[in-house]
Protein backbone atom coordinates (compact mmCIF):
# COMPACT_ATOMS: atom_id res chain seq x y z
CA UNK A 1 0.00 0.00 0.00
CA UNK A 2 1.22 3.48 -0.91
CA UNK A 3 1.24 5.30 2.47
CA UNK A 4 2.01 8.72 0.99
CA UNK A 5 -1.08 8.31 -1.12
CA UNK A 6 -3.05 7.37 1.98
CA UNK A 7 -1.96 10.59 3.67
CA UNK A 8 -2.68 12.62 0.55
CA UNK A 9 -6.19 11.20 0.30
CA UNK A 10 -7.13 11.78 3.92
CA UNK A 11 -5.62 15.24 3.84
CA UNK A 12 -8.27 16.03 1.21
CA UNK A 13 -11.07 14.20 3.00
CA UNK A 14 -10.51 12.83 6.48
CA UNK A 15 -13.99 11.37 6.73
CA UNK A 16 -13.48 8.44 4.37
CA UNK A 17 -13.84 5.14 6.20
CA UNK A 18 -10.98 2.69 6.62
CA UNK A 19 -12.83 0.25 4.35
CA UNK A 20 -13.17 2.85 1.60
CA UNK A 21 -9.52 3.79 1.88
CA UNK A 22 -8.53 0.13 1.75
CA UNK A 23 -10.56 -0.27 -1.43
CA UNK A 24 -8.93 2.76 -3.04
CA UNK A 25 -5.42 1.77 -2.10
CA UNK A 26 -5.65 -1.97 -2.57
CA UNK A 27 -5.15 -3.19 1.00
CA UNK A 28 -7.13 -4.34 4.00
CA UNK A 29 -9.19 -2.24 6.38
CA UNK A 30 -6.99 -3.42 9.25
CA UNK A 31 -3.84 -2.30 7.47
CA UNK A 32 -5.30 1.17 6.97
CA UNK A 33 -6.40 1.39 10.62
CA UNK A 34 -3.02 0.27 11.91
CA UNK A 35 -1.15 2.68 9.68
CA UNK A 36 -3.33 5.67 10.56
CA UNK A 37 -2.86 4.91 14.25
CA UNK A 38 0.89 4.78 13.69
CA UNK A 39 0.80 8.13 11.84
CA UNK A 40 -1.16 9.63 14.71
CA UNK A 41 1.28 8.29 17.28
CA UNK A 42 4.39 9.50 15.48
CA UNK A 43 2.67 12.85 14.84
CA UNK A 44 2.77 12.62 11.06
CA UNK A 45 -0.96 13.15 11.38
CA UNK A 46 -1.41 16.05 13.78
CA UNK A 47 -5.16 16.35 13.84
CA UNK A 48 -8.42 16.50 11.92
CA UNK A 49 -10.25 19.78 11.43
CA UNK A 50 -13.24 21.18 9.60
CA UNK A 51 -13.23 24.17 7.30
CA UNK A 52 -16.08 26.44 8.43
CA UNK A 53 -17.37 29.57 6.73
CA UNK A 54 -18.21 31.54 9.87
CA UNK A 55 -19.76 34.31 7.78
CA UNK A 56 -22.71 31.97 7.34
CA UNK A 57 -23.29 31.93 11.10
CA UNK A 58 -24.09 34.50 13.76
CA UNK A 59 -20.65 34.14 15.25
CA UNK A 60 -18.49 37.22 14.69
CA UNK A 61 -14.92 36.43 13.86
CA UNK A 62 -12.07 38.71 12.89
CA UNK A 63 -8.92 37.42 11.28
CA UNK A 64 -5.72 39.43 11.14
CA UNK A 65 -2.31 38.95 9.58
CA UNK A 66 0.40 40.56 11.66
CA UNK A 67 3.84 41.24 10.29
CA UNK A 68 6.30 41.09 13.16
CA UNK A 69 9.87 42.40 13.09
CA UNK A 70 12.08 40.65 15.57
CA UNK A 71 15.44 41.44 17.11
CA UNK A 72 16.84 37.99 17.73
CA UNK A 73 18.36 37.72 21.21
CA UNK A 74 21.70 36.09 21.86
CA UNK A 75 21.26 32.38 22.32
CA UNK A 76 17.58 32.54 21.45
CA UNK A 77 17.30 33.07 17.71
CA UNK A 78 13.91 33.23 16.07
CA UNK A 79 12.63 29.93 17.40
CA UNK A 80 12.33 31.09 20.99
CA UNK A 81 10.53 34.27 19.98
CA UNK A 82 8.19 32.28 17.78
CA UNK A 83 7.48 29.94 20.69
CA UNK A 84 6.59 32.86 22.94
CA UNK A 85 4.14 34.02 20.34
CA UNK A 86 2.54 30.73 19.35
CA UNK A 87 1.81 29.82 22.98
CA UNK A 88 -1.02 32.35 23.00
CA UNK A 89 -4.26 30.52 22.23
CA UNK A 90 -5.46 33.44 20.10
CA UNK A 91 -2.65 32.76 17.65
CA UNK A 92 -3.67 30.54 14.81
CA UNK A 93 -0.44 30.27 12.80
CA UNK A 94 3.12 31.52 13.00
CA UNK A 95 5.53 31.42 10.06
CA UNK A 96 9.18 32.51 9.79
CA UNK A 97 9.42 34.60 6.63
CA UNK A 98 11.99 35.85 4.18
CA UNK A 99 11.78 39.49 3.10
CA UNK A 100 10.89 42.71 4.86
CA UNK A 101 9.76 41.25 8.18
CA UNK A 102 10.49 38.12 10.19
CA UNK A 103 7.39 36.44 11.55
CA UNK A 104 3.94 36.26 10.07
CA UNK A 105 1.33 35.76 12.79
CA UNK A 106 -2.26 34.89 11.97
CA UNK A 107 -4.73 35.49 14.73
CA UNK A 108 -8.43 35.20 15.19
CA UNK A 109 -10.49 37.25 17.58
CA UNK A 110 -14.10 38.14 18.25
CA UNK A 111 -13.70 41.82 17.40
CA UNK A 112 -11.15 44.17 15.87
CA UNK A 113 -10.70 45.70 19.29
CA UNK A 114 -9.85 42.36 20.80
CA UNK A 115 -7.24 41.75 18.12
CA UNK A 116 -5.82 45.26 18.48
CA UNK A 117 -5.55 44.81 22.24
CA UNK A 118 -3.78 41.50 21.79
CA UNK A 119 -1.21 43.14 19.54
CA UNK A 120 -0.75 46.13 21.80
CA UNK A 121 -0.69 44.31 25.10
CA UNK A 122 0.81 40.92 24.38
CA UNK A 123 2.73 40.95 21.11
CA UNK A 124 4.29 44.40 20.77
CA UNK A 125 5.51 44.37 24.34
CA UNK A 126 7.72 41.30 23.93
CA UNK A 127 11.39 42.29 24.31
CA UNK A 128 12.41 40.79 21.01
CA UNK A 129 9.65 42.37 18.98
CA UNK A 130 10.76 45.62 17.43
CA UNK A 131 7.74 46.43 15.25
CA UNK A 132 4.36 45.08 14.20
CA UNK A 133 2.02 45.85 11.36
CA UNK A 134 -1.52 44.52 11.53
CA UNK A 135 -3.68 43.77 8.51
CA UNK A 136 -7.30 42.79 9.01
CA UNK A 137 -8.87 40.29 6.65
CA UNK A 138 -11.99 41.81 5.09
CA UNK A 139 -13.21 38.77 3.22
CA UNK A 140 -12.02 35.22 2.70
CA UNK A 141 -12.38 34.02 -0.86
CA UNK A 142 -10.44 30.81 -0.63
CA UNK A 143 -8.84 29.00 2.27
CA UNK A 144 -6.85 25.75 2.30
CA UNK A 145 -7.88 25.04 -1.27
CA UNK A 146 -11.58 25.57 -0.59
CA UNK A 147 -13.41 28.40 -2.33
CA UNK A 148 -15.88 30.14 -0.01
CA UNK A 149 -19.28 31.12 -1.27
CA UNK A 150 -18.80 29.13 -4.45
CA UNK A 151 -21.99 28.29 -6.21
CA UNK A 152 -22.77 24.69 -5.46
CA UNK A 153 -21.69 22.84 -8.57
CA UNK A 154 -24.69 20.93 -9.75
CA UNK A 155 -24.15 18.11 -12.18
CA UNK A 156 -24.86 19.81 -15.48
CA UNK A 157 -23.84 16.87 -17.64
CA UNK A 158 -26.40 15.54 -20.07
CA UNK A 159 -26.40 12.15 -21.74
CA UNK A 160 -25.32 12.53 -25.35
CA UNK A 161 -26.16 9.29 -27.09
Amino acid at each position, binding site marked *: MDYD*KLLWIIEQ*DSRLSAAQLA*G*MLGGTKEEVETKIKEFEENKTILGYKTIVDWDKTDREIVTALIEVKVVPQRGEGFDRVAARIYQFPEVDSVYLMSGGFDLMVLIEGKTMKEVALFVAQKLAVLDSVSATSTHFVLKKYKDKGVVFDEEKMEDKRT*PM*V
Partner: protein
Amino acid sequence: MDFTSRINPVVAGMKPSGIRRFFDIAFTMENVVSLGIGEPDFVTPWHIRDAGIYSLEKGNTMYTPNPGLPELRKAIARYQQRRFDLHYDPEEVLVTVGGSEAIDLAIRAFVTPGDEVIIPEPCFVCYGPIVRLAGGVPVALPTMSEDSFRINPTRLKAAITEKTKILIVPFPNNPTGAVMRKEHLEEVAKICVAHDLIVVSDEIYGELTFGNQRHVSISSLPGMRERTIIVSGLSKSHAMTGWRIGYALAPKEAIAPMNKVHQYAIMCAPIMSQYAAIEAIENGDDDIAMMAEEYDRRRMMITDELNRMGLPCFEPEGAFYVFPDIRSTGLSSEKFCESLLYAERVAVVPGDAFGASGEGFVRCSYAYSVQNITIAMERIKRFLDTL
Protein backbone atom coordinates in the same frame (compact mmCIF):
# COMPACT_ATOMS: atom_id res chain seq x y z
CA MET B 1 -44.89 18.46 -46.31
CA ASP B 2 -44.82 14.84 -45.32
CA PHE B 3 -41.33 14.57 -43.96
CA THR B 4 -41.93 11.27 -42.24
CA SER B 5 -42.43 9.22 -45.36
CA ARG B 6 -39.36 10.81 -46.91
CA ILE B 7 -36.91 10.07 -44.10
CA ASN B 8 -33.80 8.29 -45.28
CA PRO B 9 -34.61 4.65 -44.45
CA VAL B 10 -31.22 4.28 -42.77
CA VAL B 11 -32.04 7.18 -40.47
CA ALA B 12 -35.56 5.90 -39.89
CA GLY B 13 -34.07 2.55 -38.94
CA MET B 14 -31.72 3.97 -36.32
CA LYS B 15 -32.76 2.68 -32.95
CA PRO B 16 -32.76 5.05 -29.99
CA SER B 17 -29.64 4.52 -27.94
CA GLY B 18 -30.05 2.15 -25.01
CA ILE B 19 -27.90 4.49 -22.96
CA ARG B 20 -30.53 7.17 -23.18
CA ARG B 21 -33.56 5.11 -22.19
CA PHE B 22 -32.75 4.98 -18.49
CA PHE B 23 -31.71 8.61 -18.32
CA ASP B 24 -35.06 9.59 -19.74
CA ILE B 25 -36.79 7.64 -16.96
CA ALA B 26 -34.33 8.89 -14.33
CA PHE B 27 -35.04 12.50 -15.28
CA THR B 28 -38.65 12.06 -14.22
CA MET B 29 -37.61 10.81 -10.76
CA GLU B 30 -36.22 12.59 -7.73
CA ASN B 31 -33.24 11.67 -5.61
CA VAL B 32 -31.63 9.55 -8.33
CA VAL B 33 -27.95 8.72 -7.92
CA SER B 34 -26.39 8.25 -11.30
CA LEU B 35 -23.37 6.27 -12.40
CA GLY B 36 -24.54 6.69 -15.94
CA ILE B 37 -22.70 9.55 -17.56
CA GLY B 38 -19.57 8.91 -19.59
CA GLU B 39 -18.06 12.34 -19.26
CA PRO B 40 -15.41 13.67 -16.84
CA ASP B 41 -16.90 15.23 -13.71
CA PHE B 42 -14.05 17.73 -13.57
CA VAL B 43 -14.37 21.26 -14.87
CA THR B 44 -11.73 22.12 -17.49
CA PRO B 45 -8.62 23.29 -15.59
CA TRP B 46 -8.56 27.05 -15.12
CA HIS B 47 -5.43 27.82 -17.18
CA ILE B 48 -7.09 26.20 -20.20
CA ARG B 49 -10.35 28.09 -19.70
CA ASP B 50 -8.29 31.25 -19.30
CA ALA B 51 -6.56 30.62 -22.64
CA GLY B 52 -9.98 30.29 -24.28
CA ILE B 53 -11.14 33.55 -22.70
CA TYR B 54 -7.93 35.31 -23.73
CA SER B 55 -8.33 34.19 -27.33
CA LEU B 56 -11.77 35.80 -27.35
CA GLU B 57 -10.40 38.97 -25.79
CA LYS B 58 -7.91 39.19 -28.60
CA GLY B 59 -10.75 39.02 -31.09
CA ASN B 60 -10.13 35.53 -32.42
CA THR B 61 -13.62 34.94 -33.74
CA MET B 62 -12.94 33.83 -37.31
CA TYR B 63 -12.71 30.53 -39.14
CA THR B 64 -9.37 28.78 -38.98
CA PRO B 65 -7.77 26.79 -41.80
CA ASN B 66 -9.90 23.66 -42.41
CA PRO B 67 -7.50 21.18 -40.83
CA GLY B 68 -6.94 23.40 -37.79
CA LEU B 69 -4.58 26.12 -36.57
CA PRO B 70 -1.01 25.29 -37.65
CA GLU B 71 0.21 25.87 -34.04
CA LEU B 72 -2.34 23.37 -32.76
CA ARG B 73 -1.45 20.74 -35.36
CA LYS B 74 2.21 21.16 -34.42
CA ALA B 75 1.37 20.97 -30.72
CA ILE B 76 -0.65 17.77 -31.22
CA ALA B 77 2.21 16.17 -33.16
CA ARG B 78 4.67 17.05 -30.38
CA TYR B 79 2.25 15.84 -27.71
CA GLN B 80 1.73 12.45 -29.38
CA GLN B 81 5.47 12.01 -29.57
CA ARG B 82 6.02 13.07 -25.96
CA ARG B 83 3.19 11.02 -24.46
CA PHE B 84 2.89 7.97 -26.72
CA ASP B 85 6.11 7.92 -28.77
CA LEU B 86 4.10 8.29 -32.01
CA HIS B 87 5.65 10.22 -34.87
CA TYR B 88 3.33 12.31 -37.02
CA ASP B 89 4.03 15.45 -39.03
CA PRO B 90 1.70 18.39 -38.38
CA GLU B 91 0.36 17.79 -41.93
CA GLU B 92 -0.77 14.36 -40.75
CA VAL B 93 -3.00 15.92 -38.07
CA LEU B 94 -6.60 16.93 -38.76
CA VAL B 95 -8.36 18.91 -36.01
CA THR B 96 -12.04 17.97 -35.74
CA VAL B 97 -15.13 18.85 -33.74
CA GLY B 98 -14.60 16.24 -31.06
CA GLY B 99 -13.38 12.69 -31.56
CA SER B 100 -16.87 11.89 -32.86
CA GLU B 101 -16.34 13.92 -36.01
CA ALA B 102 -13.00 12.22 -36.59
CA ILE B 103 -14.75 8.82 -36.39
CA ASP B 104 -17.39 10.01 -38.84
CA LEU B 105 -14.76 11.28 -41.29
CA ALA B 106 -12.64 8.17 -41.05
CA ILE B 107 -15.63 6.01 -41.91
CA ARG B 108 -17.31 8.21 -44.52
CA ALA B 109 -14.11 8.97 -46.43
CA PHE B 110 -13.50 5.28 -47.08
CA VAL B 111 -16.67 3.22 -46.81
CA THR B 112 -18.62 2.63 -50.03
CA PRO B 113 -21.92 0.74 -50.24
CA GLY B 114 -21.46 -2.91 -49.38
CA ASP B 115 -18.12 -2.49 -47.59
CA GLU B 116 -17.92 -4.32 -44.30
CA VAL B 117 -16.60 -2.69 -41.14
CA ILE B 118 -15.71 -4.93 -38.22
CA ILE B 119 -16.72 -3.44 -34.89
CA PRO B 120 -15.63 -5.13 -31.65
CA GLU B 121 -18.50 -5.13 -29.18
CA PRO B 122 -19.39 -4.08 -26.54
CA CYS B 123 -18.32 -0.63 -27.69
CA PHE B 124 -19.37 2.99 -27.95
CA VAL B 125 -22.60 3.23 -29.89
CA CYS B 126 -21.70 5.48 -32.82
CA TYR B 127 -19.72 3.30 -35.20
CA GLY B 128 -22.56 1.11 -36.52
CA PRO B 129 -24.97 3.93 -37.42
CA ILE B 130 -22.24 5.92 -39.20
CA VAL B 131 -21.20 2.87 -41.21
CA ARG B 132 -24.83 2.29 -42.21
CA LEU B 133 -25.24 5.93 -43.25
CA ALA B 134 -22.33 5.44 -45.62
CA GLY B 135 -24.04 2.35 -47.06
CA GLY B 136 -21.61 0.03 -45.36
CA VAL B 137 -22.33 -3.07 -43.34
CA PRO B 138 -21.34 -3.14 -39.67
CA VAL B 139 -20.09 -6.56 -38.62
CA ALA B 140 -20.14 -7.12 -34.87
CA LEU B 141 -17.12 -8.86 -33.39
CA PRO B 142 -18.09 -9.92 -29.86
CA THR B 143 -15.43 -9.64 -27.18
CA MET B 144 -15.78 -11.88 -24.15
CA SER B 145 -15.20 -11.48 -20.45
CA GLU B 146 -12.99 -14.60 -20.55
CA ASP B 147 -10.74 -12.71 -23.00
CA SER B 148 -10.84 -9.66 -20.69
CA PHE B 149 -12.96 -8.05 -23.43
CA ARG B 150 -10.02 -7.88 -25.82
CA ILE B 151 -10.18 -8.68 -29.53
CA ASN B 152 -9.74 -12.42 -29.98
CA PRO B 153 -7.56 -12.97 -33.09
CA THR B 154 -9.29 -16.25 -34.01
CA ARG B 155 -12.70 -14.63 -33.93
CA LEU B 156 -11.34 -11.65 -35.87
CA LYS B 157 -10.04 -13.90 -38.65
CA ALA B 158 -13.41 -15.62 -38.84
CA ALA B 159 -15.19 -12.27 -39.21
CA ILE B 160 -13.09 -11.09 -42.16
CA THR B 161 -14.49 -11.51 -45.68
CA GLU B 162 -13.32 -10.14 -49.01
CA LYS B 163 -15.65 -7.17 -48.40
CA THR B 164 -14.01 -6.19 -45.13
CA LYS B 165 -12.46 -2.75 -45.46
CA ILE B 166 -12.05 -1.38 -41.95
CA LEU B 167 -11.44 -2.72 -38.45
CA ILE B 168 -12.38 -0.43 -35.57
CA VAL B 169 -10.03 -0.79 -32.57
CA PRO B 170 -11.76 0.95 -29.65
CA PHE B 171 -9.32 0.66 -26.73
CA PRO B 172 -9.16 1.68 -23.90
CA ASN B 173 -12.76 0.60 -24.18
CA ASN B 174 -16.04 2.20 -23.36
CA PRO B 175 -17.99 0.45 -21.73
CA THR B 176 -15.77 -2.38 -20.45
CA GLY B 177 -12.62 -0.52 -19.36
CA ALA B 178 -10.59 -3.14 -21.24
CA VAL B 179 -7.22 -2.23 -22.70
CA MET B 180 -5.10 -4.02 -25.28
CA ARG B 181 -1.40 -4.00 -24.43
CA LYS B 182 1.28 -4.37 -27.06
CA GLU B 183 1.32 -8.15 -26.72
CA HIS B 184 -2.42 -8.33 -27.34
CA LEU B 185 -2.24 -6.07 -30.39
CA GLU B 186 0.57 -7.91 -32.18
CA GLU B 187 -1.53 -10.75 -33.53
CA VAL B 188 -4.36 -8.39 -34.49
CA ALA B 189 -1.88 -6.17 -36.35
CA LYS B 190 -0.54 -9.14 -38.34
CA ILE B 191 -4.06 -10.06 -39.40
CA CYS B 192 -4.75 -6.48 -40.51
CA VAL B 193 -1.57 -6.43 -42.58
CA ALA B 194 -2.32 -9.86 -44.11
CA HIS B 195 -5.83 -8.77 -45.13
CA ASP B 196 -4.79 -5.23 -46.02
CA LEU B 197 -7.38 -3.63 -43.72
CA ILE B 198 -7.68 0.01 -42.75
CA VAL B 199 -7.67 0.36 -38.97
CA VAL B 200 -9.56 3.11 -37.20
CA SER B 201 -8.06 3.18 -33.71
CA ASP B 202 -10.26 5.12 -31.32
CA GLU B 203 -7.84 6.24 -28.61
CA ILE B 204 -9.95 8.91 -26.96
CA TYR B 205 -9.28 7.27 -23.55
CA GLY B 206 -5.56 6.77 -24.29
CA GLU B 207 -4.48 8.97 -21.37
CA LEU B 208 -6.62 7.01 -18.94
CA THR B 209 -4.83 3.73 -18.43
CA PHE B 210 -4.00 2.57 -14.93
CA GLY B 211 -1.06 0.73 -13.49
CA ASN B 212 2.43 1.35 -14.78
CA GLN B 213 1.95 0.67 -18.47
CA ARG B 214 1.11 3.50 -20.83
CA HIS B 215 -1.36 3.08 -23.66
CA VAL B 216 0.16 1.56 -26.80
CA SER B 217 -1.31 2.51 -30.16
CA ILE B 218 -1.75 -0.22 -32.73
CA SER B 219 -0.21 2.20 -35.24
CA SER B 220 3.17 1.75 -33.55
CA LEU B 221 3.32 -1.94 -34.55
CA PRO B 222 5.11 -3.12 -37.70
CA GLY B 223 3.24 -2.38 -40.91
CA MET B 224 0.48 -0.49 -39.10
CA ARG B 225 1.29 3.22 -39.31
CA GLU B 226 0.57 3.29 -43.05
CA ARG B 227 -2.91 1.77 -42.56
CA THR B 228 -4.05 3.28 -39.26
CA ILE B 229 -6.21 6.31 -38.63
CA ILE B 230 -5.91 7.29 -34.98
CA VAL B 231 -8.88 9.11 -33.53
CA SER B 232 -8.38 11.05 -30.31
CA GLY B 233 -9.22 14.32 -28.63
CA LEU B 234 -9.09 16.38 -25.48
CA SER B 235 -12.55 15.63 -24.09
CA LYS B 236 -11.60 12.83 -21.72
CA SER B 237 -7.92 13.58 -21.09
CA HIS B 238 -8.33 17.26 -20.24
CA ALA B 239 -12.01 17.34 -19.20
CA MET B 240 -12.86 19.42 -22.27
CA THR B 241 -15.98 17.71 -23.63
CA GLY B 242 -17.92 20.91 -24.30
CA TRP B 243 -15.06 22.55 -26.21
CA ARG B 244 -15.44 19.96 -28.96
CA ILE B 245 -11.83 19.39 -29.92
CA GLY B 246 -10.78 16.08 -31.35
CA TYR B 247 -8.35 15.06 -34.04
CA ALA B 248 -7.30 12.36 -36.45
CA LEU B 249 -3.73 11.25 -37.07
CA ALA B 250 -2.99 9.39 -40.27
CA PRO B 251 -0.78 9.39 -43.35
CA LYS B 252 -1.43 12.37 -45.65
CA GLU B 253 -3.22 10.21 -48.22
CA ALA B 254 -5.82 9.36 -45.56
CA ILE B 255 -6.05 12.85 -44.05
CA ALA B 256 -6.68 14.46 -47.48
CA PRO B 257 -10.03 12.75 -48.24
CA MET B 258 -11.14 13.14 -44.62
CA ASN B 259 -10.37 16.85 -44.84
CA LYS B 260 -12.53 17.08 -47.97
CA VAL B 261 -15.59 15.81 -46.08
CA HIS B 262 -14.67 17.97 -43.08
CA GLN B 263 -14.36 21.03 -45.31
CA TYR B 264 -17.89 20.70 -46.65
CA ALA B 265 -19.63 19.39 -43.55
CA ILE B 266 -17.96 21.33 -40.74
CA MET B 267 -15.37 23.75 -42.19
CA CYS B 268 -13.29 23.95 -39.02
CA ALA B 269 -13.36 23.44 -35.26
CA PRO B 270 -14.18 26.57 -33.20
CA ILE B 271 -11.20 28.89 -33.02
CA MET B 272 -11.41 29.72 -29.30
CA SER B 273 -11.50 26.02 -28.49
CA GLN B 274 -8.46 25.48 -30.67
CA TYR B 275 -6.52 28.13 -28.75
CA ALA B 276 -7.60 26.59 -25.45
CA ALA B 277 -6.50 23.21 -26.80
CA ILE B 278 -3.00 24.56 -27.50
CA GLU B 279 -2.71 25.60 -23.86
CA ALA B 280 -4.07 22.23 -22.70
CA ILE B 281 -1.66 20.25 -24.82
CA GLU B 282 1.40 22.35 -24.10
CA ASN B 283 0.86 22.88 -20.36
CA GLY B 284 -1.69 20.32 -19.24
CA ASP B 285 0.29 17.18 -18.44
CA ASP B 286 -0.05 17.78 -14.69
CA ASP B 287 -3.83 18.09 -15.04
CA ILE B 288 -3.97 14.75 -16.82
CA ALA B 289 -1.95 13.17 -14.02
CA MET B 290 -4.12 14.70 -11.31
CA MET B 291 -7.37 13.52 -12.90
CA ALA B 292 -6.02 10.07 -13.76
CA GLU B 293 -4.92 9.63 -10.15
CA GLU B 294 -8.36 10.60 -8.92
CA TYR B 295 -10.07 8.22 -11.37
CA ASP B 296 -7.70 5.48 -10.33
CA ARG B 297 -8.64 5.59 -6.66
CA ARG B 298 -12.33 5.64 -7.52
CA ARG B 299 -11.71 2.71 -9.85
CA MET B 300 -10.03 0.73 -7.09
CA MET B 301 -12.81 1.57 -4.65
CA ILE B 302 -15.75 0.79 -6.92
CA THR B 303 -14.22 -2.45 -8.22
CA ASP B 304 -13.53 -3.57 -4.67
CA GLU B 305 -17.06 -2.75 -3.50
CA LEU B 306 -18.79 -4.45 -6.43
CA ASN B 307 -16.69 -7.58 -6.06
CA ARG B 308 -17.42 -7.71 -2.34
CA MET B 309 -21.17 -7.46 -2.87
CA GLY B 310 -21.06 -10.39 -5.26
CA LEU B 311 -21.06 -8.67 -8.66
CA PRO B 312 -17.78 -9.90 -10.15
CA CYS B 313 -15.84 -7.22 -11.97
CA PHE B 314 -13.13 -7.93 -14.42
CA GLU B 315 -10.46 -5.38 -13.45
CA PRO B 316 -10.85 -2.41 -15.78
CA GLU B 317 -7.48 -1.05 -16.80
CA GLY B 318 -8.56 2.03 -18.73
CA ALA B 319 -11.21 4.70 -19.38
CA PHE B 320 -13.54 5.43 -16.44
CA TYR B 321 -15.97 2.53 -16.46
CA VAL B 322 -16.44 -0.74 -14.63
CA PHE B 323 -18.47 -3.49 -16.23
CA PRO B 324 -19.75 -5.80 -13.48
CA ASP B 325 -21.17 -9.21 -14.33
CA ILE B 326 -24.77 -9.33 -13.11
CA ARG B 327 -25.65 -12.83 -14.39
CA SER B 328 -25.73 -14.26 -10.84
CA THR B 329 -28.87 -12.18 -10.19
CA GLY B 330 -30.74 -14.10 -12.88
CA LEU B 331 -31.89 -10.81 -14.40
CA SER B 332 -31.23 -9.52 -17.88
CA SER B 333 -29.13 -6.35 -18.09
CA GLU B 334 -32.19 -4.37 -19.04
CA LYS B 335 -34.30 -5.77 -16.20
CA PHE B 336 -31.50 -5.28 -13.69
CA CYS B 337 -31.13 -1.61 -14.62
CA GLU B 338 -34.85 -1.01 -14.62
CA SER B 339 -35.44 -2.70 -11.26
CA LEU B 340 -32.43 -0.97 -9.72
CA LEU B 341 -33.66 2.39 -10.91
CA TYR B 342 -37.20 1.91 -9.62
CA ALA B 343 -36.26 0.18 -6.37
CA GLU B 344 -33.19 2.15 -5.29
CA ARG B 345 -32.99 5.07 -7.70
CA VAL B 346 -29.57 4.28 -9.06
CA ALA B 347 -28.99 4.80 -12.77
CA VAL B 348 -26.53 2.51 -14.55
CA VAL B 349 -26.50 1.48 -18.20
CA PRO B 350 -27.37 -2.03 -19.44
CA GLY B 351 -24.40 -3.73 -21.10
CA ASP B 352 -26.38 -4.76 -24.17
CA ALA B 353 -26.81 -1.07 -25.07
CA PHE B 354 -23.22 -1.43 -26.32
CA GLY B 355 -23.79 -4.57 -28.36
CA ALA B 356 -25.36 -7.98 -27.82
CA SER B 357 -22.24 -9.37 -26.16
CA GLY B 358 -22.70 -6.86 -23.35
CA GLU B 359 -25.77 -8.78 -22.16
CA GLY B 360 -25.29 -9.98 -18.59
CA PHE B 361 -23.28 -6.89 -17.66
CA VAL B 362 -23.97 -3.28 -16.73
CA ARG B 363 -21.81 -0.20 -17.18
CA CYS B 364 -21.02 1.92 -14.15
CA SER B 365 -19.13 5.15 -14.74
CA TYR B 366 -16.83 6.35 -12.01
CA ALA B 367 -16.66 9.87 -13.38
CA TYR B 368 -18.49 10.74 -10.17
CA SER B 369 -17.41 11.94 -6.74
CA VAL B 370 -16.43 9.42 -4.08
CA GLN B 371 -19.48 10.51 -2.08
CA ASN B 372 -21.76 9.81 -5.03
CA ILE B 373 -20.17 6.43 -5.68
CA THR B 374 -20.43 5.52 -1.98
CA ILE B 375 -24.16 6.21 -1.89
CA ALA B 376 -24.69 4.30 -5.15
CA MET B 377 -22.79 1.30 -3.79
CA GLU B 378 -24.87 1.25 -0.59
CA ARG B 379 -28.05 1.31 -2.63
CA ILE B 380 -26.93 -1.38 -5.07
CA LYS B 381 -26.01 -3.60 -2.14
CA ARG B 382 -29.42 -3.07 -0.59
CA PHE B 383 -31.01 -3.86 -3.96
CA LEU B 384 -29.09 -7.13 -4.25
CA ASP B 385 -30.18 -8.13 -0.74
CA THR B 386 -33.81 -7.95 -1.82
CA LEU B 387 -33.34 -10.27 -4.81
